[in-house]
């Protein structure tokens, strides 16, 4: 068993990065995720694992540092909150276009604009539908506990390298600021130069050896026929992700008449709502998407065959509900799909969710 500690979600992100052999972190402070860089700076991993930690002059600089470092085959990450992620979106599109692996964390706060510093899930569209320009997708992981903040750093890097694609951890201020018991992962050494050469030698700028082809990292392709070929390759990759990487958790769904769909913080709230609703004889289940892209379309479609309704509970005005509707309609089903959300940094309470269920479905 790994080391047990009581830690904030943000602190765990930093600790997990060091332990999984991350080569570099670039950041710019923003609440509610500033503890990520604070913890890294206090840990001074450059003295132990050799990991680089750097505070850039802006989020635009951050993401371009990530772009450059990722291009050399290194395991690199950045974290921010909504306003910072907006600034990074251009760079994320470039990284997706250049097919480079990296991990980006969004600890969401209430928007739009500078908004508030309290937790929110209003960056769902930004994470799942693009954010930046062009037809690209990111693998989006949605942790629901401090433990998953630890586990998803390693998983995020693994998936990013498997698909040569940016991966995102989409979390929020509640999980970032909350402390829970966490079992930390064991230390993994950083990749050596030889290992990087082995993993990324055919695409990364690891230094040209005599007789080798030059690796060029770019998202630019002025010949539109070739650019379309690139796009077709990206789309194949995203399709493969949808087939192979979809992750979700079903709680009390087997006999459920109604199913709540919620991820991250709101899924934790809804687990309590399930207990309350079930004690009132209301047969409710919970489907928790763990990957938001790929979205658990098949699981939703399967549930749509037997349930009377879905309630999408999100800390936003109704974003994930569109993916639930798509999943149900694409499967040719017709079930009621409702939304309940709080905005601007308010977390719904378990009781509120039960009231909504009762109002909408009884």
């Amino acid at each position, binding site marked *: 068993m790994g080391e047990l500690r*009581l830690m904030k979600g943000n602190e765990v992100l930093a600790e997990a990065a060091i332990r999984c052999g991350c080569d570099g972190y670039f950041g710019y402070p923003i609440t509610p995720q500033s503890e990520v860089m604070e913890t890294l700076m206090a840990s001074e991993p450059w003295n132990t694992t050799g990991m680089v930690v750097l505070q850039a002059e802006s989020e635009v600089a951050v993401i371009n540092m990530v772009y450059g470092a990722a291009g050399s085959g290194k395991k690199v990450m950045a974290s921010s909150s909504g306003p910072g992620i907006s600034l990074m979106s251009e760079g994320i599109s470039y990284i997706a276009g250049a097919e480079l692996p990296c991990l980006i964390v969004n600890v969401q706060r209430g928007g739009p604009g500078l908004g508030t510093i309290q937790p929110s899930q209003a960056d769902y569209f930004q994470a799942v539908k693009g954010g930046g320009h062009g037809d690209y997708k990111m693998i989006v992981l949605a942790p629901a506990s401090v433990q998953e903040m630890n586990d998803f750093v390693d998983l995020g890097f693994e998936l990013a390298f498997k698909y040569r694609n940016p991966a995102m951890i989409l979390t929020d201020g*509640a999980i970032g600021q*909350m*402390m*829970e018991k966490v079992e930390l992962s064991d230390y993994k050494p950083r990749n050596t130069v030889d290992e990087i050469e082995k993993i990324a030698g055919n695409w990364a700028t690891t230094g040209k050896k005599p007789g080798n082809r030059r690796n060029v990292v770019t998202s630019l392709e002025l010949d539109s026929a070739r650019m379309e070929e690139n796009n077709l390759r990206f789309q194949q990759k995203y399709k493969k992700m949808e087939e192979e990487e979809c992750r979700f958790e079903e709680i009390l769904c087997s006999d459920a008449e109604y199913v709540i769909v919620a991820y991250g913080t709101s899924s934790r*709230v809804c687990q*309590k709502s399930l*207990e309350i609703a079930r004690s009132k004889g209301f047969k409710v289940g919970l489907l928790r998407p763990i990957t938001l892209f790929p979205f658990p379309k098949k699981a939703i479609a399967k549930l749509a065959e037997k349930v009377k309704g879905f309630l999408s509970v999100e800390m936003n005005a109704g974003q994930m509900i569109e993916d639930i509707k798509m999943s149900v309609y694409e499967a040719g089903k017709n079930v009621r799909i409702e939304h309940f959300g709080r905005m601007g940094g308010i977390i719904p*309470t378990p009781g509120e969710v039960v009231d909504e269920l009762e109002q909408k479905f009884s």
Partner: protein
Amino acid sequence: MTEEIIIAGFGGQGVLSMGKILAYSGIMEGKEVTWFPSYGPEMRGGTANVTIIVSDVKISSPVLHEYDTAIILNQQSMDKFEKMIKPGGTLLYDPNGIIYPPKRKDIDIYMVEATKTSVEMGNPKVFNMIVLGSFLKIKTVVTLDNVEKGLQKSLPERYHDLIKLNIDAIKKGQEIIEVVYSCRN
């Protein structure tokens, strides 16, 4: 066993650190814990609160609309949280600065003069540990041994010489707690 607790008072009273020590003690006891703070543009003198859940089973929501126990350390928090205690639940408060004492008749109410006692002990900083001691007298969610281990884990090593002082304050809190009202009578 699941105990859902809100600790609320002024920033600077040690509300968050008291919660942290309780949560760490829970881990030492082999339990599941969550510590969920009100974070925000808060400062010394503003209000601060933290929700602590200690449980034998996996914890669902870290955010709650009602609590088993409310530990209340100023009037603003009394106004906000007295009504959010479950019927049959527990309210523990320090009367210092409380103008309108609690009125509910369906909960157990306890009082601890922690502000006054901490001054008498010559160290106002142990205030929160006196309150913690009183709470542990009512609800033994963790043992004193595990609180000591929790202190060792949560305090940086340079402060470990202060652990005895903190344990003494906890014991003091266990002694001076007073029953104000019991709903079971």
